[in-house]
């Protein structure tokens, strides 16, 4: 269980995390969502004590992480896969981490096998691809068989196979009763993995709800219909109980199925040129939610509806701080 209470972090004049409170419960995958620069990484760093909060608290199983008697048995964290000494081999890196917590060397082989790194374990980390580095970070996090797992953008740099692997891993960890917090700036990724969502923007909590609720509120489908006799069709659909909004040369119909719309048109001899079901994009819903809080907005152009915009330009998650290059 991770509990964040009125957590605030200020870098000079920038408020990176602003009075943030939430609880991450065991047995679920909790998605930690927000645009780049929203404060996700800063929050996670404060949870494991790398950064000190300006005010507020972050606790794990009821106490600050630094007070844990057996840190790696309690929490496994992947904050940034590049946070390793590249001159060491993967195996030696894992051994050093394991020894610091008195974990047996056999654990190193276990997590190397689990993450599929056995074959490259003797190679220096410097030569690792982004995906291999990501796997090494996950291997490090799982060394202590922790009850709380926290991954910051774990799918970055992974190929589709790797993404699927992480998704299954996260689901499995939660199914075993662990607390799983995983951050992402991509809603589409979260929609397939998370049971619960915590959405932040500009360091503030925007939403804390179950994925089911989120989908119910934002994932509704509607029917798009195109007809040369739009003006005749619209009142008929309204009479049948639908809400109709003209959208350019098509009608957006809520409350009726494709079949119902088609039958009504046929019954009145109205030709249809297009009839299909449109699912609202979760990405668009997420962007609507965070639009006002995007740290690095892309000018004044509103994003077109129902299209997945690329995320805002990549930017460090911690404004005002320079990222250390390896």
């Amino acid at each position, binding site marked *: 269980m991770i509990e964040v209470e009125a957590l605030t972090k200020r870098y000079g004049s920038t408020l990176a995390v602003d009075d943030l409170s939430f609880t991450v419960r*065991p047995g679920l995958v909790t998605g930690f969502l927000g645009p780049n620069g929203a404060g996700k990484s800063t929050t996670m*760093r404060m949870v*494991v*004590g*790398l*950064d*000190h909060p300006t005010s507020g608290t972050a606790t794990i*199983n009821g106490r600050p*992480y*630094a007070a*844990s*008697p*057996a*840190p*790696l*048995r*309690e929490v496994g*964290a992947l*904050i*940034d896969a*590049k*946070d*390793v*000494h*590249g*001159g*060491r*081999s993967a195996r*030696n*890196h894992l*051994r*050093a*981490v*394991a*020894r*610091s*917590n*008195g*974990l047996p060397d056999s*654990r190193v082989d*276990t*997590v190397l096998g*689990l993450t599929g790194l056995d074959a490259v374990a003797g190679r220096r980390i410097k030569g690792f691809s982004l995906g291999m580095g990501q796997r090494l970070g996950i291997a*490090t996090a*799982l060394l*202590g*068989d922790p*009850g709380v797992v926290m991954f910051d953008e774990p799918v970055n740099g992974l190929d589709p196979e790797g993404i699927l692997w992480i998704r299954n891993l996260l689901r499995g960890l939660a199914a*075993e*009763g*662990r607390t799983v917090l995983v951050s992402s700036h991509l809603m589409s990724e979260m929609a397939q993995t998370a049971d619960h969502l915590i959405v932040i923007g500009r360091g503030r909590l925007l939403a804390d709800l179950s994925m089911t609720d989120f989908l119910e509120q934002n994932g509704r489908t509607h029917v798009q219909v195109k007809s040369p006799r739009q003006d005749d069709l619209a009142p008929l659909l309204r009479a049948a109980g639908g809400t109709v909004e003209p959208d350019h040369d098509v009608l957006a119909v809520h409350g009726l199925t494709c079949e119902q719309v088609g039958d009504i048109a046929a019954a009145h001899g109205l030709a249809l040129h297009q009839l299909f079901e449109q699912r609202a994009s979760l990405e668009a819903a997420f962007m609507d939610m965070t639009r006002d809080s995007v740290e690095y907005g892309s000018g004044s152009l509103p994003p077109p509806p129902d299209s997945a915009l690329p995320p805002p330009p990549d930017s460090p998650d911690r404004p005002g701080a320079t990222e*250390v290059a*390896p």
Partner: protein
Amino acid sequence: MTLPASPTANAASPFALDGPVHHPTTLDVVRSEWLKLRTVRSTFWTLAVTVVVMVGFSVLVCAAQVATWDQLTAEEQQANPINGVSSALAGLSLAQLAVVVLGVMVISSEYSTGGIRSTFTAVPRRARVVVGKAVVLGLSTLVVGLVASFVAFFVGQLILATKHFDVALGDPDVLRAVLGSGLYLAACSLFGLGIGLIVRNTGGGVTISVAALFVLPPLTALIPGTVGDQIQKFITSNAGQSVAATGSAPDRLGPWVGYLVFTVWWLVLIGVGTWLVRRRDV
């Protein structure tokens, strides 16, 4: 203070960790730091340079003294008698720079690579990391420093023996000076660690350390008056190297007093460094 049982204790997790929960201690951190120290190349190189410089300078200086002795006039010989200990340990003031670089890099390389975040995530009690690093660094450089000092001493005496200028370990102060040379090298690495903890950056740390041990001490001799004399005696390497010298000199502290003063130097640096490391975000 008990941890909740591992959530996988009963589930068929592919990587469940069985057995009682071990509460890690500083000794575990020492073991980890020992593995880290010997699995990076810079450790090997800086320690190799330490040995090569110590032995190499002993050979160079002793051979040159033996070769030129007969060309000196009797007055010159009287004014500059050959000191078998200082000739054989002539490499000390350069070798100190190699170990100080190692001391700085033990911590600065973790900051430059980001590895420090892995370290502090695994060991959130940061003072333990500093203790672990200091223990393995100090012991490693002590062993290598002692080996380098004794080899340099014996090789030097072999050369000096050709003109019968050699001294024996049993002669007054000689054993203490050779041991002191190894002790001083170990202390230098801890001096570097202290600077590294404060500045966190290899370039800056090495520059400051070299200035503090190599550049500044000779300059303090230029400060006039008794205040200047005291500063000159107490400054870093002037104090520390007195333990590796034989005979007495008016401009030098006693061997163990000097070593104690240098110990205070690195203890203060590591203390300030630890305080900063615990306060700062990483």
